[in-house]
C-alpha cells in the first residue's frame, strides 16, 4: 500500500505544470541530442547543468533525466538512417537497423525502436518503483571479480554478433582492446602509447572512434565510384512507414526479452547498459530459427537492443536513488545538479526527499509517453530525409559529425583523429573487417582490464577468485559455453560467406 501512496504522491509532483514542462523539454532535448551524431548525453547534460541553477531541484532533475533516456530514443535514429551510432548503446542497432533502411524499411525500423523503447521504459519504471530497494543488493554484490567475468562474457557476445568470419571478429575485438589501452594507466598513471600527444593522455574517445569507423568511413565508402546506383535504388524502395502486423508479431517477444535483460544489467554500475544492448542482440541471434537473417535486416535485431538499452537507462537510476551513488558519468552529473541545489544524495534520499525520488520515477513514465508521441510522427520526417540527394546529405553529415566530436572536449585534435579513423574504417571495410566488434572491444576493454587488475590486487594475485566467487564463476561458465557455440559451427563447416560479403 505504501507503494501506491508513494506513487500517487509522485504523480502529484510530476503532474504539476512546471514539472510537466520540464519533462517535455527534457524529452525534446534528449531526442535532439540522440539524433545529432557525436553530441553525447554527457556533454549535453554538462552543458545544461548551469541552466538548472535557476530551476527548482525536482524540475531540474526531471529535465536532466528526460535528456538521458530521451537520448536513448533518438540515438537509434542515426544508427538506422546513416549507420552512425551516437552512443555506445546503439552500436548494435546499426547492424540490422541500417540494413533495414537500405531495404527501404527505415520506417518500420525507427517505429519498432520507439515502440520497443516505450514498452521497456514503462516496465523498467515500474520495476524501479516496486523492486528498487532489493535490487540494490545486486549493485553491491558485483565486485571487481564479477565485473571482469561480466566483461569477458560481453566480449564473447561481441564475437557472436559478428556475421562474417569469427577469426576476423576476434581480431577486431583485440584491436579494439589495444586501442582502448591508449592513455593513462589507471593504477600507475603512466602514459601508454600516447606519443606525448596531450589529447591522447586520457585515451581515444568513444565518439571519436565511432564517428570515424562508422560515420566518416561510411561516407567515404558511399562516395566510391559506382555506389550511387545502390543509393538511388534505396530511395525508390522506401515502402511503408509503420511496421506491419508481421513485424509486430516478430518483434514482440524480442522486445520482452530485451526489456528483461536490460532491466537486470542496467542496475550494474559502469558498462551495464552497453552490455545489455548486445546481450539482447546475441540472445535473439542465438535463439532465432534462422540466425543468418541477422545482420541483413532482421527486425528483432533492432527491437531487442533498443528495448534493452532503454530499460537499462531507466534501471540505472536505481543505485542513484537507493544508494546515492552514481553508476555512470551522466548520473554523476545529476548528483552534481543535486549538489548545486544543496541536496547530496545518499542512502536515505528516498526517505528524506520523497518529492524528488517519487516525482522523478513518476516523471519517467510520463516522459516515456511523451517520447513515443514525439517520436512516432518524426519517423515520417526522418524517412523523408533519406530522399535528400546524397550529394547534399554527405557534406551535411560531415559537418554535423565534426561539430559533434569537437563539442565533446572542445578539442580540434579529436576531429582530426576521427578523420584518421574514418580512413582506417574505409580500409577495414575494404578488407571485410567489421567495425562493431572493434567498438565493443574499445568500450569493454578498459572495464575488463581495470577490474581484472583490481580483483588481482584485492586477492593479492590469486587468480582463483574468478572461479571461487559464485557469481563470477557462473558468468565465466556462460561465457565459455557461448564461445564453444560460436566457434563450433565455423570449425565444422568452412563458411562460404566470404564470397557473398563483398557488400556488407
Amino acid at each position, binding site marked *: 500500500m505504501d507503494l501506491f501512496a508513494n506513487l500517487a504522491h509522485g504523480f502529484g509532483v510530476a503532474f504539476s505544470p512546471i514539472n510537466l514542462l520540464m519533462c517535455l523539454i527534457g524529452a525534446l*532535448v534528449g531526442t535532439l541530442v540522440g539524433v545529432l551524431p557525436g*553530441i553525447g548525453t554527457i556533454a549535453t547534460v554538462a552543458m*545544461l547543468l548551469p541552466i538548472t541553477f535557476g530551476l527548482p531541484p525536482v524540475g531540474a532533475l526531471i529535465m536532466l533525466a528526460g535528456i538521458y533516456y530521451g537520448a536513448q530514443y533518438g540515438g537509434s535514429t542515426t544508427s538506422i538512417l546513416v549507420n552512425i551510432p551516437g552512443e555506445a548503446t546503439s552500436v548494435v542497432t546499426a547492424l540490422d537497423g541500417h540494413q533495414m533502411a537500405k531495404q527501404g524499411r527505415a520506417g518500420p525500423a525507427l517505429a519498432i525502436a520507439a515502440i520497443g523503447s516505450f514498452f521497456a521504459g514503462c516496465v523498467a519504471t515500474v520495476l524501479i518503483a516496486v523492486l528498487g530497494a532489493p535490487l540494490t543488493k545486486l549493485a553491491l554484490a558485483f565486485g571487481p571479480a564479477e565485473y571482469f567475468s561480466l566483461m569477458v562474457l560481453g566480449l564473447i557476445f561481441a564475437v557472436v554478433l559478428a556475421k562474417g568470419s569469427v577469426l576476423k571478429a576476434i*581480431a577486431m575485438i583485440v584491436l579494439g582492446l*589495444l586501442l582502448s589501452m591508449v592513455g593513462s594507466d589507471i593504477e600507475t598513471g603512466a602514459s601508454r602509447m600516447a606519443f606525448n600527444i596531450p589529447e591522447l593522455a586520457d585515451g581515444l574517445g568513444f565518439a571519436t572512434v565511432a564517428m570515424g569507423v562508422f560515420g566518416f568511413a561510411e561516407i567515404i565508402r558511399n562516395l566510391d*565510384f559506382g555506389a550511387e546506383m545502390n543509393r538511388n535504388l534505396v530511395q525508390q524502395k522506401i515502402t511503408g512507414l509503420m511496421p506491419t502486423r508481421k513485424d509486430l508479431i516478430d518483434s514482440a517477444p524480442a522486445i520482452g526479452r530485451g526489456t528483461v535483460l536490460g532491466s537486470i544489467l542496467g542496475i550494474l554500475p559502469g558498462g551495464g547498459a552497453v552490455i545489455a544492448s548486445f546481450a539482447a542482440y546475441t540472445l535473439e541471434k542465438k535463439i532465432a530459427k534462422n540466425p543468418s537473417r541477422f545482420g541483413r535486416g532482421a527486425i528483432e535485431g533492432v527491437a531487442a537492443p533498443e528495448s534493452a538499452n532503454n530499460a537499462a537507462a531507466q534501471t540505472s537510476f536505481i543505485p542513484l536513488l537507493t544508494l546515492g551513488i552514481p553508476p555512470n558519468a551522466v548520473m554523476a552529473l545529476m548528483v552534481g545538479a543535486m549538489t548545486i541545489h544543496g541536496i547530496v544524495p545518499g542512502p536515505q534520499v528516498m526517505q528524506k526527499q520523497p518529492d524528488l525520488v517519487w516525482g522523478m520515477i513518476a516523471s519517467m513514465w510520463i516522459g516515456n509517453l511523451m517520447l513515443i508521441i514525439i517520436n512516432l510522427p518524426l519517423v515520417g520526417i526522418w524517412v523523408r530525409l533519406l530522399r535528400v540527394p546524397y*550529394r547534399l546529405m*554527405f557534406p551535411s553529415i560531415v559537418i554535423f559529425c565534426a561539430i559533434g566530436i569537437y563539442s565533446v572536449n572542445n578539442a580540434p585534435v579529436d576531429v582530426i583523429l576521427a578523420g584518421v579513423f574514418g580512413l582506417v574504417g574505409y580500409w577495414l571495410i575494404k578488407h571485410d573487417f567489421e567495425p562493431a566488434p572493434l567498438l565493443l572491444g574499445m568500450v569493454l576493454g578498459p572495464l575488463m582490464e581495470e577490474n581484472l587488475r583490481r580483483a588481482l*590486487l584485492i586477492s593479492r*594475485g590469486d587468480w582463483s577468485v574468478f572461479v571461487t566467487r559464485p557469481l563470477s564463476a557462473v558468468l565465466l561458465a556462460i561465457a565459455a559455453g557461448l564461445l564453444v557455440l560460436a566457434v563450433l559451427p565455423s570449425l565444422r563447416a568452412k563458411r562460404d560467406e566470404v564470397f557473398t560479403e563483398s557488400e556488407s
Partner: protein
Amino acid sequence: MADTMGHTASTTPDASTTRNTSVALGIVVLAVAPQIFELVWSLGTVVGLGAGRTPLSALAAHAMALLLAFPSIVAKTALSPDSLLALIYSYPLFAIAILTLFVKIRAPQDYIGGIVLMAVALFALWASSDLQGMHGFSFGAGTAPRMFGVLLVALGAGIALTGLLTDGAGLSHYSWRGPLFVAAAIVFFALAIRPLGLIVTAFSSFLIAAVGSYETKWIETIIVGACLTLGCAILFPYILGLPMPMFPRFLIQ
C-alpha cells in the same frame, strides 16, 4: 597511425593481377612507414613548426638503427627506441615481405588484411615496450597492452594464413577523390574552428567535402551549405548551449 599507412601496402591494384613482388614491396614500405612518417614530420622543424629531431638526425638515427639493431642486441648494449622500433616492428615485417615472394596468395584481401593487423600489433608492442611489466602480483602498465599485442600478432598471422590456404576475395578498388576531400574537410574544420569560428568553418568545410563527389552541383550546394551553416549557428550555441566561437576571433576583438 600505422593503419592509415597500411594503405600504401593495400592500394596495389586489381586482385587478379596482384603479383607477389608488388605485395612484398608494399610490406617493405609498411615496415619502414613509421620511420618515413617521422622523417616527413621532422621536415616541419626546418620551417620552425613543432618540436622533434631535425630531418637529418632522424634519418641518420633510423638508418643506424635499421642497420645495426641486430649487432647491438648481440653485443648486449642498451637499445635506443629507434633500434627497438627496427627490432620489434621493421625486422619481422621485412621477414614477412621476403616470405611473401615465395608463397601463393589465394585470398589477397585476407592475406594483406592479416599482415597489416600484425603490423599494427607489432607497432603497439613497440609503443608499449617502455612500460613497466608485472611486478609481484600486480599488473604493470605494460602487461595488458603486451598481452593483447601478442594476441593480435597471432590473430593477424592466422588471418594471413587463411589467405594462403583458402581461395577468397581479391583486393577491392579504392577511390581517391572521396577520401581525399572528406579528410580535407575534416582537417580544415579542426584547424579553423578555434581561430575562425563556427560560421566560416562550417560553410567552408561543407564546400570542401562537397568536392569529394562527382555529382555535386555548385549552386544548390552553396545554397544548402549556407542554410545548414545558419541552422548550425542557431542550433549548437543557442539551443544546445555548446560553447563555441561563432565568428573569426580578429573580428570579435
